[in-house]
């Protein structure tokens, strides 16, 4: 037995390196003006992994709220009598997202797919939507390619993109005196995209990026990268990691005593990140938020409903899913059918003001532009109630927040 121990241990190390595939989603029964007599909304997102809390199963609750509101608004006049939600877990993998999206459109008769975090997965679903001529509204993925060179007639981007985050945070921080930057970004599609967007935004606003440091993804030890980022004494360190990696970075950033030496700017932050790390660790950090639950009475009222159903405050992704579902159902109502092309004509160019979108407009490239907010994380003493973490520093008007319509987008 001893002699085989090395083999077993090496095998163990090798097996461990192999990622595991899982399963998710269940089949559902599937027949006008309405393709099968009903409207089916597919929610395709991360139900178990790193983005589960950001969007995940609670987005179904948000979509159900939209269905309830639609039925309450139109009552007997509602053209969509039966509305179903089907869900699936794409585990943030583009291949699984591709398979699940086909399954949703073909077998589960989904009329639309919503959410889809992770850029590569969202791009995979956009391709499927285009081929199947069915609708897809992306909420949680941030790639500009969805409305750039990969844009198509059936795909919409509802909430944010990396360019908007970079423009918002990058320009604002430079204008406030944070001219020299070190950027630390995870070495995969999202991180590279963010690094590029932020570098453009910072230099465009008159700042300089001294160095861009790539890190492995995922990664739990950033100590060396932080030392390196600090080595050129920048005024601002920009971190483009998300989720658990972001938390790792910020913990170690604070541990290294960096708060007093450089200002921290976070590329993409969800309120769940602040909640999980504790407001103290993020206090004073700047970032751009597409939506905040406690912005005003309207947001607060909707968030209270959400809280009653889920026990937690909504992220911008939850509100985005609600808004996308609601506007889709409104478009179905206006078109009188769930035919994708008819519904699409109702959505295109629409101006929207709802709980999620202020001064919103569905642009010709299907990028939904709206007011976004430059925020700073409150210090512990400023927090007056649970989840009350953000202080709105400025509202960035819809027209300035996003990049202009991309020349790469040809539908």
């Amino acid at each position, binding site marked *: 037995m001893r002699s085989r*121990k*090395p083999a077993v241990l090496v095998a*163990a*190390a090798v097996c*461990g390196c192999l990622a595991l595939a899982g399963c998710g989603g269940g089949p559902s029964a599937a027949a006008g003006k309405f393709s099968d007599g009903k409207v089916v909304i597919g929610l395709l997102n991360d139900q*178990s992994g790193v983005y589960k809390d950001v969007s995940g199963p609670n987005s179904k609750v948000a979509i159900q709220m939209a269905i309830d509101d639609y039925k309450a608004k139109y009552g007997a006049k509602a053209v969509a009598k039966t509305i179903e939600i089907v869900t699936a877990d794409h585990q943030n993998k583009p291949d699984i997202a591709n398979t699940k999206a086909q399954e949703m459109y073909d077998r589960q008769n989904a009329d639309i797919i919503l959410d889809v975090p992770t850029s590569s997965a969202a791009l995979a679903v956009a391709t499927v939507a285009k081929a199947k001529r069915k609708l897809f509204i992306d909420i949680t993925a941030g790639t500009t390619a969805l409305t750039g060179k990969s844009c198509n007639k059936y795909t919409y981007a509802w909430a944010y993109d990396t360019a908007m985050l970079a423009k918002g945070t990058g320009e604002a921080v430079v204008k406030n005196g944070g001219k020299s930057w070190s950027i630390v970004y995870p070495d995969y599609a999202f991180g590279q995209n963010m690094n590029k967007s932020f570098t453009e935004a910072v230099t465009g606003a008159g700042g300089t990026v001294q160095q861009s440091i790539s890190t492995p993804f995922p990664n739990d030890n950033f100590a*060396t990268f932080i030392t390196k980022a600090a080595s050129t004494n920048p005024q601002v360190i920009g971190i483009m990691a998300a989720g658990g990696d972001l938390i790792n970075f910020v*913990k170690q950033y604070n541990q290294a005593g960096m708060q007093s030496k450089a200002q921290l700017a976070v590329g993409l932050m969800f309120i769940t990140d602040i909640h*999980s790390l504790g407001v103290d660790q993020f206090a004073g950090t700047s970032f751009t938020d597409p939506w905040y639950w406690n912005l005003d009475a309207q947001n607060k009222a909707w968030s209270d409903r959400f809280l009653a159903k889920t026990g937690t405050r909504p992220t911008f992704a939850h509100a985005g899913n609600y808004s996308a579902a609601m506007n889709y159902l409104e478009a179905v109502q206006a078109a009188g059918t769930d035919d994708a092309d008819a519904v699409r004509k109702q959505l295109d160019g629409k101006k929207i003001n709802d709980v999620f979108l202020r001064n919103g407009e569905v642009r010709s490239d299907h990028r939904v532009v709206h007011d976004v907010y430059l925020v700073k994380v409150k210090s512990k003493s400023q927090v007056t109630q649970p989840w009350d973490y953000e202080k709105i520093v400025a509202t960035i008007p819809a027209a300035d927040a996003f990049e202009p319509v991309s020349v790469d987008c040809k539908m």
Partner: protein
Amino acid sequence: MSAFVQYTVQGLAAGGFYALAALGLAVIFGVLGVVNFSHGACYMLGAVAAAVLLDVLHVHFWVALAIVPVLLFLVGVLMERLLIRWLLRLDPLYNFLLTFGLSLILVDVVKRRYGVSGLPYERPAGMTGQVHLGGIGLPTYSVFVCLFSLLICGVVWVLLTKTRVGMIVRACTEDADRSRALGINVGRWVTPVFGFGIALAGLAGVMAAPFRAITADMGGNFVIILFAVVVIGGLGSILGAVAAGFLVGLVEAYGQAYAPTFAQVAIFVLMAGVVLFRPAGLFGRDETA
């Protein structure tokens, strides 16, 4: 130069986690012949336990450092008594698969209960600043992690070399069957040794709590590196596990600093090299206790 010292301290701090956890893995592997894949999950449990204790019972970091290993010891005892024990007579692969499955269950249970975005943890008092050594500023907590993990490894070392229990554990680690034939009731030591190994993983978890994201998945990557550490150090070699732990920490830090693209690959290249040229590991055969 100053940056080099910083990278070294950071490497040793990261190595401290690996050394502690690998020490537990090596002892379990040696005495039970079990490749404990759930070691990463137990490291995660240690961090989660510290966070929950702080949140619910306001148990301070320094107290958690003492309590959590005891809790994890009990978890280890339960795992061994209820599960591991029944497969010890079979091919070691069975227990590897069992602990692999167990770690998936533990991770999912924590996910279900605490979500995926992580648990908050306040930085322990007195550990937030920097210490200055010859004009070089080093994070206090990194220095603490280095020293504390060295201290624990030292204490374990003394236990192993100076006590009768340690002598028996060393003997069983080297050859459990032979120790049986010399009248040692190995079965009696299996449960406490497994518990002890898990407790060390838990201790590494508590130390990680102020320093790293406390999420259900935090042990996934960690356990892979741990296996590399144990392979590099030598199978079932206690000294090897500790030395390789710090070595891998340093390789990771220098790699990140000077060749970031190869930082993670470097560890596995080192492992492959060791397996090729010294299959028993750096400290495999001629281990001197």
